[in-house]
C-alpha cells in the first residue's frame, strides 16, 4: 500500500511549536517507535543476551555468582541434545499441543457453525461459551485438580452416565494424566477458537455466498467451496495462536499435576523450570531454552509466512 503522501497540511493558523513539530511526517513516523523499542531493548534484549552468555558457562547457582562460573562453550547444548529427558519433554509437548489444538479447532468450529446465525437464545450461549477463556489458567488447573480426583465429581458424573463404577485415576495414572491435561486445555481454550471462528464466519462476505446460492449450489456445496476457503486465513490464525500458547504451557499443568505422575505431563516449560529452580542448573536450562527458541522461531516464521500468504490471497480475492 502506498505511503500516505497527502498534500502538505494547511493547518489552522494558531499552532504551537510542539504541534508543528508533531505534524512533520518524519517525527510522526518515528516517535511511537521510540518508547516501544526502548522498553524492548531495556527489558528483554539485555536478559536475552545474558541468557546466551549464561548458556555458554557451566553455572549452577550453587557454584558462586555467575561472574565466577567456568566457561563451558557448547557443552550445555550438547548435554541438552543428548538428554533423553529433554527430548521426551519436547515430544510430549508437541503431542499435547497437537492433540489439544485439533480438538479445540474442531469443537470451536462446530460450535461457531451452530451459533453464528441469529436465533433465539443465541446471546445466552454466546456469553456462556466465552467464559472459560477468561478464567486464569492457574484457577483452571486447580479447579480441574479438584474435579479429577479419584473420588471427585467427574468420575461421579461418568459413573452416573454409564451406570458403571467409574474410577479413572486421572491424576495418578500416566496416560490418564496426559488426557486430563488435554481435557482441561480443551475446556478452556475452545472458548477462544470458538470466538475466532464466529468472528470469521460473521465477517464472511455475503456476495459470493449469495451468488453461489443463486446459481443453485446446495448448502453443503456452498460451505465447502465458498465459505471454507474464505475462512482459511481465520483457521490459520486460530492454529498459530493456539499452538504457540499450547507449546509454552506452564501454569495449568503445574497446578494440575506438577508435571507428574513421574514425567507424564512434564511439558517443555515445566522441564526447564525444574532444571532451573530445583536442580539449580541454570546454564543447562539456558542452553536448552535457546535450542527451543530456535525451534519455536522456525515454526513461527513458518506460520507467519503462511499467514501472510493467506492474507495476501484474501486481499487479492476480495479485490477481484
Amino acid at each position: 500500500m502506498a505511503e500516505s503522501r497527502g498534500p502538505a497540511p494547511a493547518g489552522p493558523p494558531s499552532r504551537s511549536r510542539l504541534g508543528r513539530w508533531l505534524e512533520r511526517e518524519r517525527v510522526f513516523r518515528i516517535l511511537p517507535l521510540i518508547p516501544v523499542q526502548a522498553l524492548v531493548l531495556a527489558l528483554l534484549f539485555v536478559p536475552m543476551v545474558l541468557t546466551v552468555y549464561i548458556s555458554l558457562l557451566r553455572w549452577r547457582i550453587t557454584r558462586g555468582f555467575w561472574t565466577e562460573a567456568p566457561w563451558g562453550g557448547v557443552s550445555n547444548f550438547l548435554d541438552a541434545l543428548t538428554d533423553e529427558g529433554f527430548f521426551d519433554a519436547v515430544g510430549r509437548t508437541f503431542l499435547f499441543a497437537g492433540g489439544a489444538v485439533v480438538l479445540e479447532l474442531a469443537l470451536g468450529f462446530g460450535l461457531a457453525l451452530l451459533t453464528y446465525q441469529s436465533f433465539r437464545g443465541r446471546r445466552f450461549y454466546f456469553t456462556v461459551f466465552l467464559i472459560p477463556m477468561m478464567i486464569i489458567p492457574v484457577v483452571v488447573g486447580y479447579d480441574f485438580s479438584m474435579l479429577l480426583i479419584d473420588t471427585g465429581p467427574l468420575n461421579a458424573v461418568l459413573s452416573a452416565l454409564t451406570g458403571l463404577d467409574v474410577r479413572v485415576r486421572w491424576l495418578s495414572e500416566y496416560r490418564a494424566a496426559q488426557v486430563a491435561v488435554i481435557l482441561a486445555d480443551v475446556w478452556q481454550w475452545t472458548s477462544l477458537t470458538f470466538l475466532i471462528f464466529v468472528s470469521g464466519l460473521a465477517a464472511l462476505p455475503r456476495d459470493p455466498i449469495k451468488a453461489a446460492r443463486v446459481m443453485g449450489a446446495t448448502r453443503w456445496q456452498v460451505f465447502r467451496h465458498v465459505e471454507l476457503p474464505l475462512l482459511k486465513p481465520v483457521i490459520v490464525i486460530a492454529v498459530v495462536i493456539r499452538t504457540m500458547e499450547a507449546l509454552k504451557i506452564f501454569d495449568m499443568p503445574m497446578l494440575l499435576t506438577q508435571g507428574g505422575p513421574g514425567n507424564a505431563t512434564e511439558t517443555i516449560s515445566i522441564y526447564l523450570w525444574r532444571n532451573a529452580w530445583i536442580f539449580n542448573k541454570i546454564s543447562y536450562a539456558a542452553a536448552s531454552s535457546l535450542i527451543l527458541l530456535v525451534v519455536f522461531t522456525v515454526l513461527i516464521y513458518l506460520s507467519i509466512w503462511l499467514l501472510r500468504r493467506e492474507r495476501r490471497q484474501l486481499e487479492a480475492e476480495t479485490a477481484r
Partner: protein
Amino acid sequence: MIRRRHVFAIVRHALLLAWTLVVLFPIGWMVMTSFKDAGDWVSWPARWVPFVDFEPTLMNYRQIFHFGDTGALRREQTEQAYNIWKATFDSVVIVTVASVVSLLLGSTLAYAISRFRTGGPNYPYTVLTIRMLPPIVVAIPLLIYYASLPEAFTWLLGRRVEFFDTYYGLTLLYIVTTLPYVIWMMLAFIDEVPRELEHAARLMGASRLATIRKVVFPLVASGMAVTLLFVFILNWSEFLLALTLSQPKVLTLPVLLNKFQSAVEGRLYGPQAAIGTVVTIPVVVLGFLIQKHLVKGFSFGMIRR
C-alpha cells in the same frame, strides 16, 4: 420444510446445551466448593445440592478476607501470605496500568506502522517473536538482570533503584510482553480504516492528531476494547514471571492462589475455590460488557462487506 427446520433447531439447542453444561460444570463446582466446609470438599459420593447434601458456609470467604475468627488458619504475626486484599490490590494496579499503557503505546505504534510502514515491513512479525518465548526462558536472566540493575543505576545516577519485587518492575515487564499482541491486533483494526477518510480530513485542514482523534479512533474503538480485554486477561493470569520476580512486597492473585497448598492438608480446596471465584468475577464482568465488540474485533481485518 418446516419440520426439518424444527428438527434442526432442536438438535442445535441440544448440542449447544450439552456444551453449556460442560462449560458450566467446572465453574459451578468451584463456586459450590467455595461454600463448602472442609469435610465436604472431597467426598464420595460427591455432594451436589446446597442445603440438601451439604450445609453452605461462608467460612472460606471469611478466611480469605480475614473477617472474624477463621478457626484453624488464623494468622497473627505473619505479615502476609493468605491476604487476598493485598493480592487483589496488587493485581488490579499492576494489570490495569500495564494493560492501558501497553494499549496506548502499541496502538500509536500500530498506527505508525499501518500508515508509514514504521520499522520496515517485517517489524510486526519480528516483534511477535517476543511472544514466542516460553517465559521460563527469560525468568532467571531477568532475575539476575533485575538484581544487577540497582548497581548500574547507582553507578549511573547515584541512586539505587530497585527492580526486583517492585510494582513498576513487574508492570514494565507486563507491558513489554503484551506489546506484540497489541501491535498485531491494532494493526489489523487500523488497516481496516480507509486512508481516504483521513486524507479527506487532512485536506480540510485537520492536524494529524485531530485526524486520529476524530476519524480513526471512533472506528477502531471496538478493536481497542477487544485488545484491552485480551491483554487484560493475559496480564491478569500471568503466573510465572510474577512467581519469580515478586513476593513478598508484591503479590499477585495467581501467585496467591498457588500458595494454598500444604504438606499435611494438601490442597486447601475451599479457600482456593473462594479465591478462584472472586478472581474470575471481574474478568467475566469485563468480558460481558465488551461482548458486543468481541466478535467484530476478532475478525482481524476480514470484514469486507
